[in-house]
């Protein structure tokens, strides 16, 4: 029965992905602009080179032909050539994907753990000072523009306290003779971007956790659990949190899309060599194939995240029908 549900969700996701592919393609086609910016604005370029570049990227073909070629290539895992880099999009994207995954992953884990903890404490101690502090903290971080927060953190931690480097992922070009040193370097570079992104996320997670938990705490089964003689800790852990986690799972998945937006800002501020910045560069350079590739990748990961959330949900919440 569950299998059927999973199957259905997978199929639904596939349909969405298909629509995304089409939408994705045409969205970028109706974007004005020309991929030849780089060449065009260089006085040393020759007319032939410009012509040839156009041809190389199939820009001479009618749009529907371009679309079918695109679809055909896509099926073979070929996302085309990046206009700017003149290398396959897959390679360009691949070289930038890990930094983003690591940063986003760490930030997600950190903010989920802290956010949930804060939400739980805040709900449980509703109305107390602890709650007020946690709530204000959540609401404030929720209201701060990501990039501004990043800049301020740099000002405080890098410039003021000189604790962490301002930017990059590793000290550039440095040769590391042992892994510990490298990890140290990596960690110190990771700290600020992860902190920024986490701060932005923690607020939302904490608020949601607090609210759902408050809802759950009013449910009758909480009274039952209390009547059974359990202490608060146990009730929260065993009865309240598992129920309150359900909306969190959906939120975490939905947040994936928003986090990508956050990474664009964070990667720009911290010069983090990830996908967000690549996407922004591609946008400014009108690198359609690259943009399409990244957008597709991001969208598919969001869809997959939602799919995983749905499936996890169906396993955590026995009420989900087959």
């Amino acid at each position, binding site marked *: 029965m569950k299998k059927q549900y999973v199957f259905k969700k997978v199929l639904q996701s596939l349909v969405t992905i298909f629509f995304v592919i089409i939408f994705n393609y045409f969205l970028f086609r109706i974007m004005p602009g020309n991929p030849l910016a780089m060449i065009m604005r260089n006085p040393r370029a020759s007319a032939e080179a410009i012509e040839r570049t156009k041809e190389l990227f199939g820009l001479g073909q009618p749009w529907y032909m371009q679309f079918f070629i695109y679809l055909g290539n896509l099926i073979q895992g070929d996302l085309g050539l990046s206009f700017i880099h003149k290398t396959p999009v897959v390679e360009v994207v691949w070289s930038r994907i890990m930094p983003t995954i690591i940063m986003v992953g760490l930030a997600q884990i950190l903010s989920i753990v802290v956010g949930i903890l804060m939400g739980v404490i805040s709900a449980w101690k509703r109305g107390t000072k602890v709650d007020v502090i946690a709530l204000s903290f959540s609401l404030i971080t929720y209201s701060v523009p990501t990039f501004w927060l990043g800049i301020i953190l740099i000002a405080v931690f890098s410039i003021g306290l000189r604790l962490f480097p301002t930017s990059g992922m590793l000290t550039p070009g440095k040769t590391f003779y042992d892994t510990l040193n490298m990890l140290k370097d990596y960690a110190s570079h990771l*700290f600020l971007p992860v902190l920024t992104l986490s701060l932005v996320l923690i607020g939302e997670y904490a608020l949601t956790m607090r609210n759902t938990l408050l809802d759950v705490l009013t449910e009758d089964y909480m009274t039952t659990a209390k009547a059974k003689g359990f202490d608060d800790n146990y009730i929260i852990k065993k009865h309240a949190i598992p129920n309150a986690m359900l909306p969190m799972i959906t939120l975490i998945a939905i947040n994936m899309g928003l986090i990508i937006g956050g990474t664009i800002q964070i990667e720009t501020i911290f010069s983090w*060599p990830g996908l967000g910045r690549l996407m922004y560069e591609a946008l400014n350079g009108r690198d359609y194939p690259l943009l399409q590739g990244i957008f597709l990748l991001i969208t598919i990961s969001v869809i997959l995240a939602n799919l995983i959330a749905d499936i996890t949900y169906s396993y955590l919440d026995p009420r989900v029908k087959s």
Partner: protein
Amino acid sequence: GSQTEEPDAMRIGVTVEIDSLSPLISYSQIGYEVFMLLYDPLISVDDNLEPVANLAKDWTLNDDQTEWTFNLRDDVKWHDGEPFTSADVVFTYDMLLGNDLGMYSGYLGGIIEVTAPDDYTVIVKTESPKANMLQNSCPILPEHIWKDVNPDDYMTWPNEQPIGTGAFKFSELKQGEYLKLVANDDYFLGRPGIDDLIFVLYANTDTMAQSIKLGEIDAATNFSPSQLDSLQTEAGIEAISAVVLGFTELSFNAWDDPSSKANPLLNDIVVRHAIELSIDKQSILDIVYSGQGSVGTSLIPPEGFYHYEPSADELRDFNIDKANQILEEAGYIDLDGDGIRQDSDGTPLEFIFTLRADNTDEVKAGQMIAGSAAEAGIKLNIETVDDGLLIDKIYSGDFDMFIWGWGTDLDPTTILNVMTTSQIGNMSDSNYSNERYDQLFIEQQTIMDPVERQKVVWEMQQILYEEAPYIILFYDNSLQAVNTAKWTGWKRIPEEGGYFFNLTNYNYLNVQPVSDTAPAEPGSNTALYVIAAVVAVAVVFMFNRRKKAK
């Protein structure tokens, strides 16, 4: 102990990533800079920007000035140990001539044939005398590498491990992070003083400015004026405003054709003149660029030998009254009193003024221009777009006016070419056409005597200045900073010029580390302690909760 192990690494902050490691593909300024370090041309320029022997130790020109003979050095080796010979030169030139690819192919215009009578001699035949032969900075590529590349793939072959003869060897390119080069110990002009040369990519200049203060990088360019001010007060850092070859212009759509999508009123030179007269270039320069640069006049920047300075009565300095006067005389009168002048048909002088959103300086300049043009009764409606979209508009001729800039070469040909009729639909971004100008353009390419050539080039600039398809706004400077506490031997080229990005690799070869500087690693240990502390607190917290739960 680390002193001996750690190489002397120079980190240079840049804000644009190299677009490709293949000279056939790249069109970027950073690409030009890097290829200059990885490869060598036959002839390069010295710190006076004069031609100087490089791979060619000397050269001769025959009497009718159409055949050049270059004698090559015989002690040059490629980075992979292969010897460098004339075959490499022939191969490179043939490849570029046959394919017309990359930013260097433009230098080879007029060459008919390249031959190698022996291993260390190259003969280049040209159609007619070629004035810019010695300004040809085209890198020589290794035949033994490139011969295996299918000519059909030249446009996409990434040249991931460039092999050159240059002062630096390629080490690694981390997309989105940095490009690392290492010193070529066997460089025929002597090993550079820098061990590792790392171009570090920044996504914004703000953190880049912080980084150089913190010692994370040793040099950088492209700062904003206010950052320059704060960098100049920093000890151990030399921040400069460098004159570079290039300018920022306001370009009109000067396409004099009924099919033009531009506002036809722009074809009236009086209108273009009036707009220029209404622009207070100096005050824009002062406010937007903190005065870093100089007010612009003609197409070729003043540092170049070929720069033409308009005479006093030609000059259109800021003068609102005059702008109003010439418009009045030409019959543009504000009849309906809305502050905007109209032509005799009642069409108002109202234009779309396109600006590049990501260039804040241009946006600000544009806003100031729009403000003062209004005082001359001309309405400029600002629209901000990104580069790609602007290119699109330029390409389709669907624009009135915009601001952008050009970087130029020592030789005037490339930039003069932009205004020729044949470039409409290609490089031309004003759709300007003038027969006399086109004629002179061909002529100047063949005049070997610089003084004679200067006259022709001056006339060309005079035509442009008079007809004003461009308003050259400023020769804006490049704001650069270097760390003088860690490195010595910095030299500005030319005197008012910069350390980098100015067509010579002098500084890369001659800068030396200050011997006793220890590599600065800002607080990476502290960072670890902080992280450890956070983890510890978390663990203690969890542990406590456990205990309570029991």
